[in-house]
């Protein structure tokens, strides 16, 4: 009896139909999403975290002459460097200069070119800065440049990745 009731109920239920508008999520395959650039603040906080392992800070800088303190003043790294970036309409040139500067900072150690395995180092930097592995074409291009161009070393790899649209976008 119970079975009959259930069959009857299901048969009734199956007579109802519902129509939904087609829906989609994300972009169709093959369509590339247009990027939005990081603001100066987003870039600064990102580069500080990625390269120095800290956030921008506020602290005192002491200026001395031959060891004798002349004066000291407070510096807000984010405000000052952010203003400097915003002093250009497209701040990428200044971002590249700041990246280069931080890579020469006393706070960071860059390995010697000869002390690391090129492909492993390149892979590590892609993972660290972009959150992904290099594809074979990218890895080959970077590794070839590492071998053939004396100007390409650990610092150049980081500079190249940081300057890319992928890193510079939100």
């Amino acid at each position: 009896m119970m079975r009959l009731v259930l069959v009857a109920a299901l048969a009734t239920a199956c007579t109802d139909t519902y129509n939904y508008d087609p829906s989609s999520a994300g972009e169709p395959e093959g369509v590339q999403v247009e990027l939005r650039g990081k603001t100066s603040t987003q870039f600064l906080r990102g580069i500080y975290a990625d390269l120095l392992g800290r956030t921008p800070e506020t602290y005192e800088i002491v200026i001395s002459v031959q060891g004798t303190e002349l004066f000291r003043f407070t510096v807000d790294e984010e405000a000052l460097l952010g203003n400097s970036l915003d002093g250009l309409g497209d701040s990428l040139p200044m971002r590249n200069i700041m990246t280069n500067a931080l890579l020469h900072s006393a706070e960071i150690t860059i390995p010697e070119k000869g002390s690391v395995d090129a492909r492993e180092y390149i892979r590590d930097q892609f993972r660290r800065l972009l959150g992904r592995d290099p594809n074979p074409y990218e890895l080959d291009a970077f590794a070839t440049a590492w071998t053939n161009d004396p100007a390409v070393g650990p610092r150049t790899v980081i500079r190249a990745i940081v300057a890319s649209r992928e890193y510079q976008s939100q």
Partner: protein
Amino acid sequence: MACTRRTFLSGLGVAAASTALSPLIKVRRAAAATGGPRVIVVGIGGGLRLRESLGMGEGATMPNLFGTTPLVTGFATGSQGAPRIAPEYAAAAPALALPAVRSQPLHTLGTLITNLRYADGPPGHLQGHGCLLSGFYNRLENRADAHLPVPTIFELHRRATNAPATDAWYVSMVGGFYRALITSDHTAYGSRFAGVYLQPPGAIQPLVPIITSGKRVVDIVPGQPLPTIPWNPAEDDAAAKLTAVLDGNAPRFASDDPIVHLMSEDNSRIQAHLSEIYADGTYQSFFPDSFGIGLRKQDGGVDGTNDAKTVYHAERVLQKFKPSVMALTLLDIDVCHMDFNGYLRAQQIADACVNHLWNFIQADSELRDTTTMIVLPEHGRHLFMNGNNPDSLGRSGIDHGQGDNGDRDVWMLALGPTIKPNQVLAPTNITQSGRSSGRYETIDAIMTAMGVLGHGAVMTEVLQAYGARPGLPIQEVML
């Protein structure tokens, strides 16, 4: 960011197609690079009244531009001496560093319109400079993302000539919202035709190498370089090539991205220009004592005011890039809200800076033969004082913005190979539908500048299509 096989291959395809087509779509070198006309619009911003400038009501504040005899009536008569600075102010303020005044005022080399009218729009700095960059009276909101609705002079020039961004510069003493003035929201123009915006006091900042060095104690030893940002052009090139590998496989920035994105070739040149400055351990590349304009330091050196730094770096840009279009914004004189004496002194600085810029142009044979320079305030200031910071001579600060005649009566000085020399004019009976002033106006100065570059017709067309009143070319100033 995930990279599927398909996107990777399509990226390669785009990169390959771009490479194949690049000879065909290469940006043409700017006309000016082959000796075409150039225009520099110098906005003496901050609100400059006729009374103190041409009227010399407080002495000759701008002797390089206008000499020492008033060029409009009603404020002072006869030859004027130095600006009248209150004695208590003079005793406390650092001395100005100013080069010797030129023997022949600049206005005698060109044409001076003494009755120009900033006829419409709020007498605010952003709106006033928006007008100087577009020839359009506007009511721009004071917001970082507020773009003009009509194309700027940079966009008009770049679209008409297919010139690179480095052929059109906006060098501004002011940052903030002014950054948005480099491009408009006009659908046929916009950021792909933007020029280069450079704010020297912000972008070229000697504290940057100190902060990024990671040192918190900087010990200055005579003869030893200060912290720098090392510059290795070979490494820059190598990094740029590898970045291109990544970018060749990445989506483009959205066309409506609020951040302007220039071509990589433009950015490489700008980066090299700035890198050279940041690599100088003497810091004289930030602002050298030899520029000679600013505040005198105790050691005899010169502290550049923001206007002086702006003009110094505008000259560096002219020297290196030889652009066809440049607009400058000065703003030191805006201290007048709180400091009338500072306002008078800042006029002296602006006057010396404009003279320095003109001399720089004349010393370069290519620039000298091709550059027309138009100098004008973006607007004036109120006819009345505001009571702020009164001095012993009975004067106080002056605001701007209410739109009285002090706010709107300005002037224009035109100089260059296309300009008639030795004219001081106050034309009247200028007629145009919608023009009630009967005078030449600020929008006419910009239309005249665009006419020199050959963009007058398109500027007129675009403004009319938007429903705006276009400026009239000022024929009286042209040879």
